């Protein structure tokens, strides 16, 4: 076989063209990924009165029509569930900014959280930027970088990868392969319980491993400020003139009993209240609102019926509770 140097470079050029084509295919097939779908919904709903942000607990638990009914909002000026599953406070801050930058002036911003989400520092590595978290590659990436830690090595990778759709949305394809693996693994096995987010049992992995570990983490968090993206959500939400409501999301009775009905969590809850309430943010403890564990789809997420109950009650609560200090919107608030 003879293979000249020129042939080698021609091969590289062919490979390059192929890679460009693959990138175009990936960009096209992921143009409606979940973060982009959510951003599209926000663009089309500038008249939103109540904006709900958070992670999948809000995503699964906030039912727009039930909330609107509870708060007596008209559907065309109602609420928007602008949550993002598998997201951290950094992405949630970016989503809030996205909404405010697209002519949305919500009267109320609901921020749902659970466990120590408000206090856990965000440390990421390249392997974490998959799935919905890929939004960090393309939604204000330079701005967002100040709110999470990346090692120097991962920072270089991040800067390179964010320019290539194949890298940015690699998780969308990996998820398809993973689903295939799971389908093959399920052959001849008892069916696993799944829901819209994944395997139901897997979400137990997101709970603390032990009561002692959770209590220790609460104690530590009770001595520290909230993390910077959460403080920014408060500041930028208030600058827009919105009433900010932090909602301790409903959890399974087993989770509440094990982790929340403890002195450590009481102390932490008081700590959070003492930080946010002087800033004019309301704290709503809804952790006990769903008392039937069967209404949860998995260890963390409410099912449809529970979401309807929670959302309507939340709407009723916000309708009856007068805002503590709603300000007029400030359109220049996002310049910082």
């Amino acid at each position, binding site marked *: 076989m003879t293979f000249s140097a020129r042939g080698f470079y021609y091969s590289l050029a*062919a*490979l390059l063209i*192929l890679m460009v084509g*693959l990138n175009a295919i990936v960009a096209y097939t992921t143009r409606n990924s979940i973060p982009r779908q959510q951003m599209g919904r926000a663009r089309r709903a500038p008249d939103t009165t109540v904006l709900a942000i958070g992670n999948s607990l809000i995503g699964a638990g906030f039912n727009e029509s039930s909330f609107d009914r509870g708060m007596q909002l008209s559907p065309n000026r109602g609420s928007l569930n602008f949550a993002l599953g598998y997201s951290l406070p950094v992405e949630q801050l970016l989503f809030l900014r996205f909404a405010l930058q697209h002519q949305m002036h919500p009267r109320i911003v609901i921020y749902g959280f659970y466990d120590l989400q408000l206090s856990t520092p965000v440390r990421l590595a390249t*392997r974490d930027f998959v*799935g919905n978290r890929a939004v960090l590659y393309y939604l204000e990436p330079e701005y967002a970088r100040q709110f999470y830690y990346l090692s120097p090595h991962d920072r270089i990778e991040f800067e390179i990868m964010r320019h290539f759709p194949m890298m940015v949305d690699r998780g969308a394809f*990996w998820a398809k*392969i993973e689903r295939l693996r799971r389908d093959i693994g399920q052959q001849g096995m008892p069916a696993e319980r799944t829901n819209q987010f994944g395997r139901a049992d897997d979400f137990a992995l997101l709970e603390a491993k032990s009561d002692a570990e959770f209590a220790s983490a609460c104690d530590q968090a009770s001595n520290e400020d909230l993390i910077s993206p959460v403080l920014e959500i408060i500041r930028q939400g208030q600058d827009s003139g919105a009433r900010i409501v932090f909602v301790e999301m409903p959890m399974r009775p087993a989770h509440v009993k094990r982790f929340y009905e403890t002195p450590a969590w009481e102390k932490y809850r008081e700590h959070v209240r003492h930080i946010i309430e002087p800033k004019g943010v309301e704290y709503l403890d809804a952790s006990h609102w769903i008392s039937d564990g069967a209404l949860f789809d998995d260890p963390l997420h409410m099912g449809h019926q529970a979401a309807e109950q929670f959302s309507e009650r939340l709407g009723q609560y916000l309708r009856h509770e007068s805002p503590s200090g709603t300000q007029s919107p400030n359109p220049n608030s996002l310049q910082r």
Partner: protein
Amino acid sequence: MDNAIMAKGNVKMELPLMDWVKQVLEYLGGERDERPPGFPFELSNWLFWGLWWGALCLLIFLFCGQSSKFIYIDF
């Protein structure tokens, strides 16, 4: 090549599929010099190598995420 059905001249050459795949891989790997019957590319063909590397890159791209611990898989 024991179980290969070979003929020369105008008669189509046939091999059991797995043998043929094995021969192709051996040819690509440099273990054999003769091109297996029915394999359309010479190894000196630069376009073939570009496509071959692209195919390998695609396979790596698809399967290199298996060490990820998927909890959420709704994207």
